[in-house]
Structures are given as C-alpha cells and as structure tokens.
C-alpha cells in the first residue's frame, strides 16, 4: 500500500502572531472567503499553489513554513 501523505499547516499560528489577525482580515487580504481560511486551518482543505503562495507572502514567510507534509502509514 502506498504511504499516505497528510499536509499539515501552521496558518492559525502565523495569523495569531500577526497581531491577532482575524480570519476575515486574512481572507480579505488574499481574496478568498472566511470559510476558506477556516477550512484550511482545520485541515479540511488544501489550498492551490497560488493561494498558498499568497498566504505565505502575506505573512512574509516561505510556503514550507506554512505548510508541511507528514508521512503516515
């Protein structure tokens, strides 16, 4: 069986570190809805490369600081 790769993210941590930015504020900055930010933070949705880059740019970090891949069984 192929190993499953789960993607985890640190979006919430970076958002709260950015002066407690709200989900709505972040959503407005990157041009999506608050529900999208919420779904990413909960790990329900993996964003496209474009959105991941926009999120990373907003926080001034590299994409792999926001998202990382976890090897599972």
């Amino acid at each position, binding site marked *: 069986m192929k190993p499953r790769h789960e993607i985890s993210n640190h979006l919430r941590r970076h958002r709260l570190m950015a002066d407690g930015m709200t989900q709505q504020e972040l959503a407005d900055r990157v041009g999506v*809805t608050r*529900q999208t930010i919420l779904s990413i933070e909960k790990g329900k949705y993996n964003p496209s490369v474009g959105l991941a880059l926009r999120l990373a740019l907003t926080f001034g970090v590299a994409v792999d600081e926001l998202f990382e891949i976890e090897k599972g069984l």
Partner: protein
Amino acid sequence: MSQPLDRLQWRPSLTTLIASGLVILGLLLAPVNWGFLVLVALGTLGPGILREFGWLRDKDEFQQRAARRAGFHAYLVTGFIAFLLVAYLRSGERDIKDPEELATFFLALLCFTWFFSTLLSYWGPQKTARRTLVVFGSAWFLVTVLDNFDDPVAMFMQVLVMAAPFFGLAFLARKWPRVAGVLLIAASVFYLFYLGMLRSSAMGLATRGLVLVLFLGPLVASAVALLLGPHADGQEEQEVARTK
C-alpha cells in the same frame, strides 16, 4: 451583513440573492402558469452555467471545489437511482403513470443531494445535521400550530410529538452525535411507516419517491452524516466566536 447571518456564517453574494429571488419568484408564479418554472431553473442552474463558461467569477477555489464535489455527488446519486428505476421498470410489465411526478422526483433528488453536499462541505457533518434538524423541527412546529390553532391542548400535544423530538435530537447531536444518529435512523423508520410509504397504493411510485426525498432525505442524510462524519464542530464554533 446582519448579525443573524453572521451567526449562520452565511454572507450571500449578489449572485446568490438574485438566484434565490428567481427561485422564489418562480415557485410563487408556478401555480399560475407552470411555464414560470423556467425562473426556478435559471435561479438554480443559471449561475453554475455562467461559471462554467467563465462569465461569472464570484467563487473562490474552496467554493468552486465544494460546488463541483456536490455536483458529482448529485450525479452519482441521481444516476444510481435512475439505473435502479430503469432496471425495475424493464424487469416486468411495469410503467410509470405520472411522468411529471417522476421528473419532479428526479429534480428534487438532484437538488437535494447537491444542496446537502454543499452544506456538508461548508459546515461539516455535525453542524449540517444539527441545523437540518432545527429547520425540520421548526417546519413541523409551524404546521402543527397552524393546523391546531383552535385547540391549544391538541396543539401542545402535537408539538410535543412532532416538533420537539427534532429540537431534542439537534441538542443531542451537539453532545453525542452518534447517539443522535442512531435515534435519527429510528425516527426515519418511524416516519417511513407514519407517512405510509411502504403500504400506500394510492400514491404512485414517483410521488412516493418525491415524499421520501423531501421528508426522509434530510433525516437519513443527517443521520448518516452524524454516524460517519468526523466531529470537530466545537473547535470551529470557538474560532467563530473568537473572530467576532
């Protein structure tokens, strides 16, 4: 947007408002002339068609994915039921006496599956199930109150039997979703008999199917969501509260 809509985490776009207006207008005018049903079609499917042509760009990538997933779910469910029906009809000397009802049944099945799947994507299984139960309870409440307006005792008893269980289940779904799911399955079986779906010969096959989709569909779908879905809505609610 107003606070009640914020509580629902629902911010309708201009497209949604126009589409909803068309659907409501179409449904209101349909009894006058069924041609007005075209308005319902435009409101329901129009925005999706415009988006597919690239003429309307009002959804972000998560919303687009949810809509496409819901469309795929609607295709699977409606297609599967259509195959079953064709097999049933062709396996004997059976025919459908009410083709309009059959078409309405498939439309209802398509729209219901699409709508419920979209809600699941947005709210998750637990919250979708809870809100479905509250809507169901409220609908039964309204019906029983209007039906027994001149008899307060009968009204109270019927509200207790018909509406209160749904509110109770909605409350239970927050604390013990799996227990609520099992009870909901039991309630669905009760309604199956209560609505006379298994023994009714007066109602045609398509009409029975329509009643099943509209009345039992939300209950069974909520039960399945509660039994099989992940339950992490509490975390989401805390987050919503924090962002206000």
